[in-house]
């Protein structure tokens, strides 16, 4: 455990300190996002999950969901944190429905 160089004092600081910012807290074993391809996901030879492709790394289609949310990997996923929290409603089966995701032009 690292020595704390910043100790939160008021409520706001405590809230900020408790917040897990993109999985980068001191405690690496509990803060890693689950399902992220770079760290704990096993390679193509052993996909432990029940979905296809079996014995492979996460399918590219699954990147949409596994790389959004509290994951820092910069895959091209819809911005589900601020602008499109419900994007998955438009494509329940991402492998088939990904065309439902339209381009977003922010003005």
């Amino acid at each position, binding site marked *: 455990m690292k*020595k704390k160089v*910043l*100790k*939160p004092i*008021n409520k*706001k*600081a405590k809230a*900020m300190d408790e917040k897990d910012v993109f999985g980068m807290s001191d405690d690496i074993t509990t803060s890693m996002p689950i399902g992220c391809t770079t760290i704990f996901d096993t390679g193509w030879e052993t996909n432990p999950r029940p979905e296809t492709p079996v014995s492979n790394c996460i399918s590219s289609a699954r990147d949409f969901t596994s790389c959004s949310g509290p994951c820092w990997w910069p895959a091209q996923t819809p911005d589900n944190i601020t602008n499109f929290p419900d994007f998955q409603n438009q494509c329940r089966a991402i492998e088939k429905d990904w065309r439902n995701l339209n381009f977003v032009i922010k003005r």
Partner: protein
Amino acid sequence: METFTLAAYKTFAVDGRPLLFLSAQNAIFEADDDILQTLDRVSAKSAGHPFTRAAFTEWSAGSPHEKSQAFEQLGRIGLLRPAGKPSAVAHESAGQAPMPVKTLVLHVTDACNLNCSYCYYHGGTSPAKGKAMTVAVARRAVDFLMDKSGAIDKVELVFFGGEPLLNKHLIAETVAYANASAAQCGKSVDFALTTNATLLSESTTMFLTENRIGVTVSIDGLPHVHDRCRRFPDGSPSFAIILPGIRRLLDAAACKPVVARVTVAGNPGDVPASLNYLLDMGFAEAGFAPVTSMDPRYRLGPEAMQQLLTQFEALSQQFLDRARENRFLGFTNLIDLLVTLHEGEVRAYPCGAGLGLFSVSTGGDLFLCQRLTGENEAAMGTIDGGLDPVQLANFRQAGHVSSKPECCECWARAICAGGCYHEALIREGRLTAANRHYCDWIKRWIEIGIDVYGRLTSENPDYLDSLSALRGHAA
């Protein structure tokens, strides 16, 4: 290559303990000396320009491990952020989002039976001349509040004037109507009233207590200070006249604390003596504010403002001494500041005016707040026609702290947000201008508050939670 910038911050040494204040978030951390040294060096070397991680490492203090730790932790709290990204401060999409109305201030009459020389309110002078709100208008205002408060289940109705108790029968009617109407909507209403205390008869006092109406008394402290400006139209002083009523009110088993509101005009006099006098009378708290006026007879000049600050500082020390022993000093200004610091509230606007609070003129027109009732710049529609969306959007855009150039780089902006709109209109000529005339004063006052806050966090932290609870914050 990715570059970074430092967000606004300020460091304080409180009792030898280094504190780091994040301006945009109103967050306070205790920092070790290394990280403060690193911050100061990075801030000096980068001089506001973006820098790379390599440059940060070169400028920072400590071992390679400590340097990377500093980088990570500063990034984590948003003090170090990727260049070009907006700061973490919440920017509401100004004026677009529908916002529920929580508080409505009713100008139940323009008339006042006092003629205080410094008063900003010149709507009517005598009870005979001033316009009074009719029951019909008050009822429509209540309907407006019930309708526009959306999902909020606890709304507030404030009676203001003029002297609101000159229209007591309307207040009584409105309280009954509002309670009935709230019950129908599944809401509850909190009532409040500001009075000059000249009309606090036995029956009025009973009415106020029975209906749980929170009372603020405008009173200027020690009798001779009070009587300098707060006089009747015939020039006679008011203190001796209001004293029996105030005693009656304070003696009544008031279920809500009665607070005093002091206007400081001309020279501050002895503020600590005034505060202690008012608290001895039985007021729960007293808050002080310099008069809003351009008149050189009343306006506080630089010297008087400095004097006021020195006295505020002395009172803060008194407050701290008592707080260490779990005792209380009802110094509203400091309590409010400490709670703001403790909760880490971030203000994009200086107050709730034009957001969840509006005032209603005697005729039923809507304005930003009670102080701005009747000012064209602050007109926001009518209770019958509703809020004017264009006026409101313009106001919310211009009133946002990020629209005030002077505030953008200020470390105190999350607490001050530019200051009172009415004060800005009178002193700066535009209601959404930043109150530059008291920038330095406010910053110094917040520093005093942070000092008291820092000491209490180490000496009696539970006390701060009880102050927060006093202001209605959850533990």
